[in-house]
């Protein structure tokens, strides 16, 4: 392991995620198992139990979302510490195979976790918590992803070592039509980061609103709150996509600006 403040934070967040996911999964499973046969009093107790679960899941998911952002910063900080690494491609080579899988998983975790968070926000605003069972089930579906993501973080940062690695210049040569995504986005055209993050969030917000729409049709109790949330989410999505479109102009200038080949 390469001990730095950031790798330590990532390992701690990973271990926290692993333990809390196990605990929350058991609690969630308990609610699903008992709710169908519960009487009035037990249902009230289950509701209280669900609010505890909900709080724990919020902490887990938010910590994982923070870890998803810190992940890229940590990898960038490891480049000078790994001989031969010129960009995050080299860092991933040093932490293979966990690093490569982790990279792929990190690209859509915010989208997946956001589905649960947005539905839970609506559930909290409606009396009786009609989505309690649905959210417990969704959490059980998310749990393997949470577990995998946290495990990959721990495995990657514990196994990564300062070995000599071949970097992207072995793959992305002059004859390769594609650029190295890490060199392109993180080093030479960083404005594209703003574009990617803005559009990524816009796509997430759109999909979350579609999920809320689906459940608003299914559970009439949440229809009003759901429609209000959809309006807010789509407006935010529009805002992020406009921000991404504005950012794409300087980003394109970063790529094209100095490259005229006229005499």
């Amino acid at each position, binding site marked *: 392991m390469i001990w730095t403040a950031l790798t330590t934070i990532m390992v701690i967040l990973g271990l926290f995620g692993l333990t809390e996911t196990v605990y929350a999964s058991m609690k969630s499973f308990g609610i699903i198992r008992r709710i169908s046969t519960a009487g009035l009093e037990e249902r009230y107790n289950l509701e209280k139990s669900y609010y505890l679960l909900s709080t724990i899941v919020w902490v887990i998911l938010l910590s994982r979302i923070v870890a998803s952002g810190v992940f890229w910063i940590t990898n960038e900080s490891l480049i*000078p510490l790994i001989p031969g690494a010129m960009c995050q491609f080299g860092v991933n080579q040093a932490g293979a195979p966990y690093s490569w899988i982790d990279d792929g998983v990190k690209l859509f975790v915010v989208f997946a976790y956001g589905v649960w968070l947005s539905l839970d926000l609506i559930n909290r605003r409606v009396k009786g918590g009609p989505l309690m069972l649905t959210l417990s089930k969704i959490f059980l579906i998310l749990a393997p992803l949470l577990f995998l993501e946290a495990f990959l973080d721990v495995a990657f940062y514990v196994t990564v070592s300062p070995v000599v690695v071949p970097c992207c210049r072995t793959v*992305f040569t*002059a004859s390769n039509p594609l650029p190295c995504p890490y060199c392109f986005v993180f080093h030479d055209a960083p404005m594209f980061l703003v574009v990617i993050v803005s559009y990524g969030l816009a796509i997430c917000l759109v999909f979350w609103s579609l999920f809320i729409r689906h459940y608003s049709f299914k559970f009439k109790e949440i229809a009003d709150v759901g429609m209000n949330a959809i309006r807010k989410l789509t*407006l935010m999505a529009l805002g992020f*996509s406009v921000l991404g479109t504005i950012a794409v102009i300087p980003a394109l200038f970063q*790529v*094209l600006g100095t490259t005229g080949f006229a005499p």
Partner: protein
Amino acid sequence: MIPKKTMLVLVLIVSVVIVSVLAFNYLRSQQTSLTLEESIAITHYNLNRKTNTLLGVNLTSEAVSSIVLTSGKMVKVQSGIAVASNTFTPSLTLAPNSTIYVPLGYSLDPEGADYTIYILTSKGTGIKGTLAYP
């Protein structure tokens, strides 16, 4: 049915992705369509490894006529982006069968990378060289 605003977001994203891909392809086609001077070559790279700078290059001509050099560019191979450029003021003239030193002063990635150096002429042609750093 997808709501109007959602549709607008998706259309915006798709159109910007298309524009970005077209822009990158335009950049690549500009680099590949450049006519190269066959009789002139970059024969030496003057590097300062302490400051990670390409100070300049030597150009050697075997051509029969002189040529005017107007500007220089450095494209990072791994990203395909021109990371540095400069215009020679006044422009430099390379006499036939001679060598000239062209000052550049381009910063190089201290972690290392491959670069393609282009020296452009007043005729719209170029002299190309490759540099693997460090």
